[in-house]
């Protein structure tokens, strides 16, 4: 009789969070499905399910290795863990001694459940120069929520714990149904749609629900701030605001009225290229049919006017009183294990550290706890070597940052870099040492869920391949070697520490062993608290934890930092309006991103099951726009902008705004050779993006609103291996059996 075993765990094939049930037979994973007894009801997406082809992937990194050729040559030699870790630790110690801890950078990509390790390592070493994509993803949102409400973590209440579901829902530059686990789990959102009266989608491109929604607004990319100001204008004009909330709990109401006066629906219609009726309709639905939620997408944060866009949207929430009401924007009460970030927040960023943060002098909202990566690139290129040692975990800065050419050149100048990953990717090729990381099925760790009302457990199901180790272990080992007093003997000790505030079965501190069995620690149903500002929760006698104690339409703090205290609209750095001459040569507005359900940013093009769904990075154009520029569905096209050109496959898509091109982002080709960093210049839209025009508050570049033109690639221009797959050709088969 075969030996069957079921293990429950938590998936993080994306940001993570779905409960998972894994079945093993004779020690082999033979089945993965959702854990029905979890907050995601037993559902899972294709990425998590396809983990089966991840854990056994022959291209996995299995051993620590060191670069024996030049960076980017792909010549590697296996070394021992001790040699790898000691080398890295020695480099760090030397850098601290010779140049100061701020010359060490600790970097990660998007959140993979290890943010707190990255930040703790940085802080324990004494450097504020953590590098994360946060400034184009989530940080501006959280920062502005914090600025306006005093509390950074506003989430959409899709749960009904307070008795109501949102009556009006806005998906603003967001496709939560695909980019699940980003803020909220898509499962919750889609379930709440059974109660929604108005579903408003604000997206130049039809996301899955756009054509089924009550209202679908297609703004020109990069102009969302104007739309938010216009909606507020309507709310003021028609006196639709929430009187009770505004009168008692807000600050700067009249100043805001003054500010949005100009933004009439007519004007907004001109700026955003939308019918003015859409502005009015959206404003009415939002302000009349309350409670409501706005799910903000990071497309808005990948724009150099993101600070004010998000500020305007946050004000919109306050005007309609959609704060802390059941079914509106809520900051959740934490589970009894507390805020997971306390693990790093407990080590403060000193003023000394702050003063050495790269870009901190310029981006006073963004570069306060992490550095501004684009400024770092510029300084590396200028030769002033602000970073001597770069410890990189996950994350493909080469792929995900603006202006790939400069990023590559800058990273090649870093004296010493290590990279931890599951696969050889562009960042690994640029490193001196690579460390093999374990997959989530191969490790024990605490997982923090975005909305912060719960944490979950990753339970080790199988052994990692070769000598791969969990990220937690790797962080701890480096920490131990350089700053031993801030780290632990074993990973289990460290995990125990992170959840110690929870209550264990014996009434004492919660231990990892018990937590791992229970899987979840959370707070919901009647345990959640709404209307916190009406109680002493944040402030004695009620109010928001802001300087004024109110919801701040106007921010004096912002003014003191030298920014406009009220939201203000700015055109993108490159647009039909701001650069009309460029627009003549590059007549299309380009946006990039639009997450694919089966890829996670740069990941999974080496997972056959997932690659099967979309072989090439694909861009979308309206069929009529395509006709105008002489390109056809299925063509491999050049997308060209002022800084370069890339090739993607064209899909004509009637769901996209005419005159807009949407390109898949974060793409490299794992199968392309090390030279050229696995084809990072072939299709990656960041070859086209600019790191010169940045948001004044957050330093975010324009990744989702640029100009471009498009034309068909000639056959002889498709020489790379990816296009020359002789066996099947790059022309898609016209039928399934064509293979």
């Amino acid at each position, binding site marked *: 009789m075969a030996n069957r075993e079921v293990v429950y765990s938590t998936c993080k094939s994306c940001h993570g969070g779905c409960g998972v049930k894994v079945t093993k037979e004779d020690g082999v994973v033979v089945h993965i499905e959702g854990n029905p007894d*979890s907050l995601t009801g037993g559902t*899972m*997406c294709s990425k998590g399910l396809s983990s089966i082809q991840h854990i056994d992937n022959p291209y996995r990194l299995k051993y620590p290795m060191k670069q024996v050729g030049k960076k980017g040559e792909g010549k590697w030699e296996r070394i021992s863990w001790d040699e790898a870790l000691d080398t890295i630790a020695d480099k760090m110690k030397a850098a601290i001694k010779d140049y100061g801890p701020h010359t060490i950078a600790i970097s990660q990509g998007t959140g993979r459940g290890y943010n707190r390790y990255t930040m703790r390592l940085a802080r324990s070493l004494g450097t504020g120069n953590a590098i994360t994509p946060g400034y184009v993803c989530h940080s501006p949102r959280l920062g502005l929520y914090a600025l306006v409400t005093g509390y950074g973590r506003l989430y959409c209440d899709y749960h009904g714990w307070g008795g109501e579901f949102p009556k009006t829902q806005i998906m603003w530059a967001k496709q939560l149904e695909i980019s699940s686990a980003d803020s909220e789990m898509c499962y919750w959102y889609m*379930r709440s749609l059974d109660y929604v009266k108005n579903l408003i989608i604000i997206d130049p491109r039809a996301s899955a629900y756009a054509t089924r*929604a009550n209202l679908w607004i297609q703004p020109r990319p990069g102009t969302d701030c104007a739309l938010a100001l216009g909606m507020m204008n309507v709310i003021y004009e028609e006196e639709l605001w929430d009187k009770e909330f505004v009168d008692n709990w807000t600050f700067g109401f009249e100043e805001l009225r003054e500010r949005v006066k100009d933004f009439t629906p007519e004007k907004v219609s001109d700026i955003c290229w939308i019918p003015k009726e859409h502005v009015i309709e959206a404003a009415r639905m939002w302000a009349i049919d309350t409670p409501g939620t706005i799910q903000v997408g990071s497309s808005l944060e990948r724009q150099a006017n993101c600070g004010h866009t998000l500020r305007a949207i946050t004000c919109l929430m306050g005007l309609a009183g959609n704060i802390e009401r059941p079914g509106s924007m809520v900051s959740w009460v934490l589970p009894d294990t507390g805020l997971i970030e306390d693990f790093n927040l407990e080590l403060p960023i000193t003023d000394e550290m702050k003063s050495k943060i790269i870009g901190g002098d310029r981006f006073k909202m963004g570069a306060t706890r992490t550095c501004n990566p684009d400024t770092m690139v510029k300084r590396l290129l200028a030769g002033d070597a602000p970073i001597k040692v770069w410890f990189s975990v996950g994350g493909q800065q080469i792929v995900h940052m603006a202006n790939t050419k400069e990023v590559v050149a800058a990273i090649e100048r870093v004296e010493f870099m290590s990279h931890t990953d599951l696969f050889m990717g562009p960042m690994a090729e640029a490193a001196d040492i690579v460390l093999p990381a374990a997959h989530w099925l191969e490790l024990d760790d605490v997982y923090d869920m975005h909305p912060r009302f719960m944490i979950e457990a990753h339970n080790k199901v199988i052994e990692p391949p070769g000598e791969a180790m969990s990220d937690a272990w790797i962080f701890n080992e480096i920490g131990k070697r350089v700053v031993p007093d801030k780290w632990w003997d074993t990973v289990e000790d460290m995990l125990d520490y992170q959840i110690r505030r929870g*209550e264990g079965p014996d009434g004492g501190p919660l231990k990892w062993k018990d937590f791992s069995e229970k*899987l979840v620690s*959370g707070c919901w*149903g009647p345990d959640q608290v709404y209307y916190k500002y009406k109680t002493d929760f944040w402030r004695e006698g009620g109010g928001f934890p802001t300087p004024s104690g109110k919801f701040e339409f106007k921010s004096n703090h912002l003014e003191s930092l030298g920014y406009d205290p009220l939201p203000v609209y700015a055109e993108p750095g490159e647009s039909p309006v701001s650069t009309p001459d460029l627009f003549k040569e590059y007549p299309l507005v380009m946006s990039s991103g639009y997450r694919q359900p089966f890829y996670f940013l740069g990941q999974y093009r080496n997972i056959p099951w997932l690659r099967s769904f979309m072989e090439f990075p694909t861009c979308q154009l309206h069929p009529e726009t395509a006709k105008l520029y002489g390109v056809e569905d299925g063509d491999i096209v050049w997308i060209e902008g002022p800084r370069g050109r890339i090739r993607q496959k064209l899909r004509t898509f009637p769901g996209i705004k005419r005159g807009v091109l949407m390109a898949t982002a974060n793409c490299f080709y794992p199968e392309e050779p090390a030279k050229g960093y696995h084809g990072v210049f072939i299709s990656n839209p960041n070859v086209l993006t600019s790191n010169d025009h940045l948001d004044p508050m957050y330093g975010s570049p324009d990744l989702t609103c640029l100009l471009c033109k498009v034309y068909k690639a000639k056959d002889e221009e498709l020489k790379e291996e990816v296009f020359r797959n002789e066996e099947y050709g790059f022309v898609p088969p016209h039928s*399934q059996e064509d293979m």
Partner: protein
Amino acid sequence: MRWGMVIDLAKCTRCHACVAACRIEHFLPLRVTWPRLIALETDNGYDVDVSTYPVRCNQCKDAPCVDACPTQASYKREDGIVAIDHDKCFGCRYCVIACPYQNRTYLSRKRNPNYFPEHAQTRFEKMGKKLYPHQVGTTEKCNFCHERIDAGREKDLKPGIDRDATPACVNTCQPRALTFGDLDDPNSNVSKLIREKSGFVLHSEYGTEPSVYYIDYKLGGNPSNKAPVEAQTGSHIQHLSTVYAPSKPKLAKKNAD
């Protein structure tokens, strides 16, 4: 009893999870997929429609594939599922061509390389050869996960209600766009959906009487946003909240500190 599926076109997000789930459930060879997604994207000048039609074998009541099969390897079960006996199939592909919905795939050697064609089989594949052997040279299709249904019914579970008796794709679908149940029972979840949301089948003019129905409608417009008691109390998840429950009421206070 006739098992059927209702697919909600308003809710499907084209996420491909059903495809992945089916691949795992049946250890599908690398280049075989039983369910598929079809994109319908139209713009007639004033109205844009972006839809995804998940398709899989319709388990037709009057199944051309069964009639066409020269070996009776394709047959109809009592419960309406059209199944294939892979020990009988001799791989003539007549059914592949005769199925008007293109839901059958002939498993050729080309379709069955290792998952990483230039590398050894993964552990999962090796185990699959044992647990769910596929026969190269025969024809395959979605079987409504009848292995799950049969095993579940043996344990008295209800297909469409109990997970262990319900198709894998239905279980994994995040927006719950797939509903499974008994078409012969007028009070079943599927029969109700078909009635209330005017379910339709693909190519009804073929007269095949599919057991897979589609529904489509506009989202929004729901009459009430009041949460049912279950949602308010979170009763379905209460047992998960906090690891050990004794001192729960202190929670809010503790966080406030």
